């Protein structure tokens, strides 16, 4: 029953990084269609969202429905900086992350004092308020009409030339780079003493408190780091799709992020990555219309909770770990003999 444990970073994974990096770098050049590249970019952006959400949900044990709020806040921050001040994504991206993080600090210091259902409902109320503001503060956000024409940035390297990130290939590297940084950060935190504290928060808050683990501090760290990356994802999304609207605060975005975290495995590093890719590609390849996609999301959520609560990645490691232990005992028996 090795569920809820991340794959050991010492063995295997280190050997896989160069291979994985090589594959990722080569991917845009092997003759994919523009559409497939587009899906990869969207997947990468959703990897940022699901990975950061898993820090809050899977390790911290907090079901936050407000993640889309920080996604939207980041998107609007970046878009507004562009529209009003002609600031490129190079300013907008870090600004989006910082503004979302600050919003999370403000909101979190209130909301993270409660747990369980109360926290869930409060987080939902928050994202709904954000949606209402986005729709109604027309002077700022142009309401339902949204903010169009958000251009992708360009990068001029003296001596080499200019990269225009409006090209899908270029933006692909940007998105994947962002995803890599997010996953690396989450993994770093999870495998550190702060990660242990998060698990304490999830598994038994009172016991953790009794040995010096501040539940509030750890919840805040997860919440704010998560919001930071959600904001970054928002900025990337804004400059890639070129358009920002209150739809980003819709529940459909929230549940998409949820299902990506849950199906992959909410307390693993790999799980949200698998979930994000699966739930970006699958609905497209099944050629499903929006409503059917959401029915699928609902079915998967329900089925996952009832049948395999720890996601696909755990299902795999549930066969792997007993096998490894079995091999270990066999090997030690051989050594002893």
């Amino acid at each position, binding site marked *: 029953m090795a569920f809820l444990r991340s794959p050991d970073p010492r063995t295997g994974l280190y050997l896989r990084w160069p291979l994985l990096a090589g594959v990722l770098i080569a991917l845009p050049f092997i003759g994919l269609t523009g559409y497939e590249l587009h899906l990869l970019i969207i997947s990468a952006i959703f990897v940022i969202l699901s990975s950061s959400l898993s820090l809050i949900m899977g390790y911290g044990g907090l079901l936050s429905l407000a993640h889309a709020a920080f996604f939207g806040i980041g998107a609007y921050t970046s878009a507004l900086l562009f529209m009003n001040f002609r600031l490129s994504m190079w300013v907008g991206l870090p600004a989006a992350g910082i503004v979302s993080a600050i919003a999370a600090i403000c909101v979190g210091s209130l909301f993270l004092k409660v747990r369980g259902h109360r926290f869930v409902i409060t987080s939902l109320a928050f994202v709904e308020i954000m949606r209402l503001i986005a729709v109604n503060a027309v002077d700022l956000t142009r309401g339902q009409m949204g903010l169009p024409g958000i251009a992708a940035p360009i990068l001029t390297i003296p001596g080499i030339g200019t990269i225009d990130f409006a090209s899908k290939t270029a933006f692909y590297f940007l998105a994947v780079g962002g995803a890599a940084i997010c996953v690396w950060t989450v993994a770093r935190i999870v495998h550190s003493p702060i990660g*242990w504290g998060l698990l304490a928060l999830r598994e038994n808050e009172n*016991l953790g*408190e009794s040995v010096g683990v501040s539940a509030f501090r750890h919840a805040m760290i997860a919440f704010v780091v998560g919001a930071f990356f959600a904001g970054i994802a928002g900025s990337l999304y804004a400059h890639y799709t070129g358009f920002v609207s209150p739809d980003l605060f819709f529940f459909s975005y929230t549940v998409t992020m949820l299902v990506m975290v849950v199906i992959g495995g909410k307390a693993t590093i790999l799980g949200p990555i698998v979930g994000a890719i699966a739930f970006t590609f699958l609905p497209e390849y099944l050629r499903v219309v929006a409503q059917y996609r959401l029915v699928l999301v609902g079915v998967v959520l329900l089925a996952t909770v009832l049948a395999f609560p720890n996601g696909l990645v755990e299902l795999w490691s549930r066969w792997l770990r007993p096998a490894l232990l079995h091999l270990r005992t066999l090997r030690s028996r051989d050594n002893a003999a």
Partner: protein
Amino acid sequence: MLLEVDSIFMNFGGIAALKGISFSVPEGQVVSVIGPNGAGKTTLFNIVTGFQKPTAGQVRFDGAVVTGLLPHAIAKHGLIRTFQKTEVFPALTVMECVRIGLLNNFQPSLFSVLIGKAEVAAFVKNSALDVAYILEMVGLQSKSEYLAQELSYGEQRLLEIAVGLAARPRLLLLDEPSSGLNAEESARFSTLVRRLQKQKITIVLVEHNMNVVMGVSDQIIVVHHGEKIAEGTPEAVSQNRDVIRAYLGREWVTDAVG
């Protein structure tokens, strides 16, 4: 005095659970708090460790006022508790559980984790040894890879104590530690308590098992209806009239004291 409980009052909406309890615990001793059920002992523990705020009164640890602090802040002073109903981290392995106790001594900032400060890595590396040592002390070394929820009840109790020990307590508050343990496990537990005392850990117990209480305590405090009715060595307390009356009823007093 390491722990000073000073006139603690606790009212729950009209009911006075604790009515001005005061006592002191000198460093290095084993003190047991006993009393009939419902006497307010666990409430007292909750107040001392920050899980509840008293209506009035003060708690001082090593001279510092700790009343009203959050539990984790009190724990950082070295005041560690266990719970009446055994608490563990269910989905974590025994090793991972105990490791969390170590956080009482070292918690890196987010920044130092992200930049990979050497002291963080060193802490993580040494944690394995620290955990192994503690597991051996409580006798769970063979179970370090088991999930906490897979352990038996008695083993979970030991695990809970192990987690508390990892926090390097100066004073350990054990809330009914031997409940649910059989005679052999209780005896092993008493040995553990004496061993901890040798390591200069002050221990305060809430207990019902009189064998354990009489066997390990340097001092006993008797609480009844939210008040302290007796205090002293095991011999003195066992002969105290008020204590006998509280536990056994009025009829027994003349017979016992004679």
